[in-house]
């Protein structure tokens, strides 16, 4: 069991009286890209947000079951959600750079967690993260310009750079390309593929082509249930469940 980076067992999520996630079991391997697909409102984003306890900020949300990160239950009272989120980074649907300079956006996480001992180390982290996010060549001359002045695709890559700067072990991406044009999408997808070298990535997407292109494993959610979870190739070519098949061929969702 502990070979898996994250393993979720019998996870239930309730929003007030609404049972949003039912009996989900997923094992996420290290250094792979796992895609969550499914129609809108099926709970894939909700489940993603459970993995770094972002749902804690919503009062009425309740999570049951076990989610283990490296064999340790992240909902254990002894776990500090703030520490957890440093390990499990997140990139959101809409690019949300802080109203600060590009440099300060990337340096934000390392500064909070004391990852750099001095300015030189911090500069290195910023450069490395921006390079990894394929933004360095575009941004190196304007590091101190506001991050909100970048284009949408650049902003999203800035947010990815910001997330990798804290050296996470898992990166959660909630529809990272839905606000981007096809060119920016292609750049981000390429990036995701490279990030797989360093850590595991979980991506929620509405685009089945995207899931097929970037992921090794795919989970199909429907109405709060995990319907099928398998190798991406198998899901897209030979799904076991009829619901998966009809979603992939465009009949539901």
């Amino acid at each position, binding site marked *: 069991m502990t070979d898996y980076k994250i393993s979720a067992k019998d996870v239930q999520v309730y929003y007030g009286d609404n049972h949003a996630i039912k009996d989900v079991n997923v094992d996420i391997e290290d250094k792979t890209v796992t895609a969550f697909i499914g129609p809108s409102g099926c709970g894939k984003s909700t489940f993603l947000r459970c993995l770094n306890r*972002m749902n804690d900020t919503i009062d009425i949300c309740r999570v049951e079951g076990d989610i283990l990160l490296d064999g340790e239950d992240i909902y254990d009272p002894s776990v500090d959600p703030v520490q957890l989120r440093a390990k499990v980074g997140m990139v959101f649907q809409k690019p*949300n750079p802080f109203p600060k300079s590009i440099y300060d956006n990337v340096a934000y996480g390392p500064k909070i967690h004391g990852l750099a001992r001095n300015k030189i180390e911090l500069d290195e982290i910023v450069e490395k993260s921006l390079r990894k996010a394929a933004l360095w060549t575009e941004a190196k001359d304007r590091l101190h310009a506001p991050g909100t002045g970048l284009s949408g695709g650049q902003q999203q890559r800035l947010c990815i750079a910001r997330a990798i700067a804290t050296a996470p072990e898992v990166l959660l991406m909630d529809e990272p390309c839905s606000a981007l044009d096809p060119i920016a999408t292609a750049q981000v997808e390429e990036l995701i593929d490279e990030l797989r070298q360093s850590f595991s990535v979980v991506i929620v997407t509405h685009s089945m082509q995207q899931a097929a292109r970037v992921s090794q494993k795919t989970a199909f959610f429907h109405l709060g249930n995990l319907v099928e979870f398998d190798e991406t190739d198998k899901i897209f070519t030979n799904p076991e469940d009829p619901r998966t098949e009809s979603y992939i061929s465009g009949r539901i969702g």
Partner: protein
Amino acid sequence: MLTIGLVLALCAIGYMMGTRRALSSASGDQRLLHSLKGYYGQNVALSILVPSATLLVVWLIAQPLLINQSVASLFSDQDLAEGASSSLIIQDMRRVANGLDVVVDQGLVSDDAIASLDAESTNVRELLADVGVAVGSDVTQQTLDGAKRYRSLSKTGNFWRGIAVLALALAGFVFAMQRTDKNFRARNVVERGVLILLFGAATVAVLTTVGIVLSLIFNTINFFDAFPAADFFFGTRWEPSFSGRGGASDLGFLPLIWGTMYISIISLIVAVPLGLFSAIYLSEYASDRVRAVAKPMLEILAGIPTIVYGLFALLTVGPLLVSAFGNGGFFGVNWMSGGTAAITAGSVMGIMLIPFVSSLSDDIINAVPQAMRDGSYGLGATQSETIRQVILPAALPGIVGAILLAASRAIGETMIVVLGAGAAASLSLNPFEAMTTVTAKIVSQLTGDGEFNSPETMVAFALGMTLFIITLCLNVFALYIVRKYREQYD
């Protein structure tokens, strides 16, 4: 009154007739009309109401001005030089004229007999006193003549006003009725009429502001004719004397603006941290239930009349501060001798401003997109790190705008200062000393027996004008900052 009633009645008739005429032009079939039948009626009613009401308003404003001018020409320049200003004489005459109206109404003297009244043979003052109209001094022949002329002019004026308004209303009625036809685009015309009505309402508000500014400007110019501007703006002593005219008074502006600024700064020192922290608590930490109770409670503070705050300063805060900082007080220092001091007024004013700062800042903090918070939490930041490093910087321009708006309220605040800060105009650095502000001095200069033509009273207008310009600049600056911030997320 009668005119207005008639015009309104005509409107009602016009509405019904317009509707009926439109229907009959389409031989009773609503679908053949260009617009709904109600629009034809509204068109007629508006065509009657808008021009005649406009004429009425213009006439009401213009008539007294024209009459005053005509009556004022009765006086020679010599009279004006001796007596008070011409506006005072005209005021006298108007009062006499109104008194004569009452006399006629009560049937003491017939309307015709008024014309032959003269000041030599009749004691007009007594006559007026009989019907309960008090006049300050004996009525001279000149004033009586003026009053008679005033009466006759306004009488004819009122008569023609009624005629003209009614005529215009009828003309509007006929014009609109003639246009009413099944192909007439009544709906579009009514739409235009609504636009004009709304525009008119907005214009009234703007014109009033212009009027206020103009009245201040003219009085300020009068003041600077009587008192040197340099002494006003750069004088360091404020010692008006009410015994003599001019000369003896020192009307230096600096001690007052110093007091205003000093007290405002004290109040901001109190209000900004408290207001800002409570805004952060309410918008970021408080649960919905706490927020539902606490926010209205804070906003009640804003609804307390400032005179009540003044009483609070005078009766509670002042003595409390004296018992802390005064002779034999809690801290064993003898800094404060009386309850009225800059710090008393400043701290109470600060309490008054808390809801102002907090509710504006709360709105601004709430306007910071949730995505910013998510982004920061997603990187493993704690709540206070997120607030300090992401939310406050994002909201800063708006918060600065809120503080500037609060500052301009502090500068304009009067009652708390009158009751809490004392009346001595001093250029002191000591917050435990009595001080006074521009607004408090405006009150004390105008609430006396002084006449409205000495520099000691007219200085109030110069003070008001200066204050107005300062707060205007602050407000414009604050709004500019707030607006600039808003554009960032839209």
